[in-house]
């Protein structure tokens, strides 16, 4: 789905020439991600959609001056981040800096501690009490499983949701996500790990109950 670099310069040219289809393509591709990232900074879906809308207007305003030093994608997300931060400030919201810059501050287990024997257990310290079971392949492709995945993503904290959406749903590289969100490699990985772990847990409890 991602627009490769070679295509990007063509796209840019088309946009500057006023090609409506090119703009519509760009909007369709990035709008869902823009809204998800905006949600890190603003409290509601509606506010995030407004920020995304404003971002596109910012993109149009800046398009002629865009020099291509970063990728178009990174540039668009920088505009979004600036607009979202300004808005959060205006609304008197404390920016969730720690949420993005220090996600590891509060520990969070990938799997509940009660799934493991005590770390001091004499024979099997920290081993599974109830081992994970292989999932039935046919249940994985059902519409219910898809709905459950979407629910699990929606239930994540905004910073984790943004990272897992960009990486796993949209297929961005870790470097692209780091650039768009302006976070370190480690923080990106911590957020991705927590998000994936929670989604796995949701699947496990659903598929386990389903048997």
């Amino acid at each position: 789905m991602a627009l490769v670099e070679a295509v990007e310069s063509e796209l840019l040219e088309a946009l500057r020439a006023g090609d409506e289809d090119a703009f519509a393509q760009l909007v369709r591709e990035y709008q869902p991600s823009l809204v998800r990232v905006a949600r890190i900074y603003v409290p509601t879906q509606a506010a995030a959609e407004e920020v995304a809308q404003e971002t596109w207007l910012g993109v149009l305003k800046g398009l002629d001056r865009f020099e291509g030093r970063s990728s178009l994608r990174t540039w668009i997300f920088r505009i979004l981040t600036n607009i979202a931060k300004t808005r959060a400030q205006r609304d008197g919201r404390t920016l969730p800096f720690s949420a993005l810059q220090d996600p590891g501050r509060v520990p969070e287990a990938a799997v509940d501690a009660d799934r493991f024997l005590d770390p001091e257990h004499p024979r099997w310290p920290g081993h599974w009490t109830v081992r994970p079971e292989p999932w039935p392949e046919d249940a994985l492709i059902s519409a219910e499983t898809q709905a459950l995945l979407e629910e699990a993503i929606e239930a994540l904290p905004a910073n984790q949701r943004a990272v897992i959406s960009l990486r796993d749903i949209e297929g961005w590289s870790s470097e692209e996500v780091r650039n768009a969100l302006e976070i370190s490699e480690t923080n990106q990985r911590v957020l991705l790990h927590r998000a994936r772990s929670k989604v796995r847990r949701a699947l496990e409890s659903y598929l386990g109950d389903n048997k």
Partner: protein
Amino acid sequence: MSDRTDQTTQLSCQELVELVTDYLEGALSAEEHSRFEAHISICDGCGVYLEQMRTTVRLLGKLPVAALPAGAERDLLDAFRGWR
């Protein structure tokens, strides 16, 4: 489950699940990487766990990307026309 020899250098299952993303991202040191794989090779539970994490990522990649509401797209295209 792993055998009980040399517990100090071996990962427990509880430790391993916290390293799965680093493993999949290729972010483990060479030493951590071999401890991880040594554990996986003898522990069925953790083997299944790793597979579940891979499956989770695979399923997420198949989710449809959310569509834009028609009204919002129209507004943006109007703005684009106005911009030119």
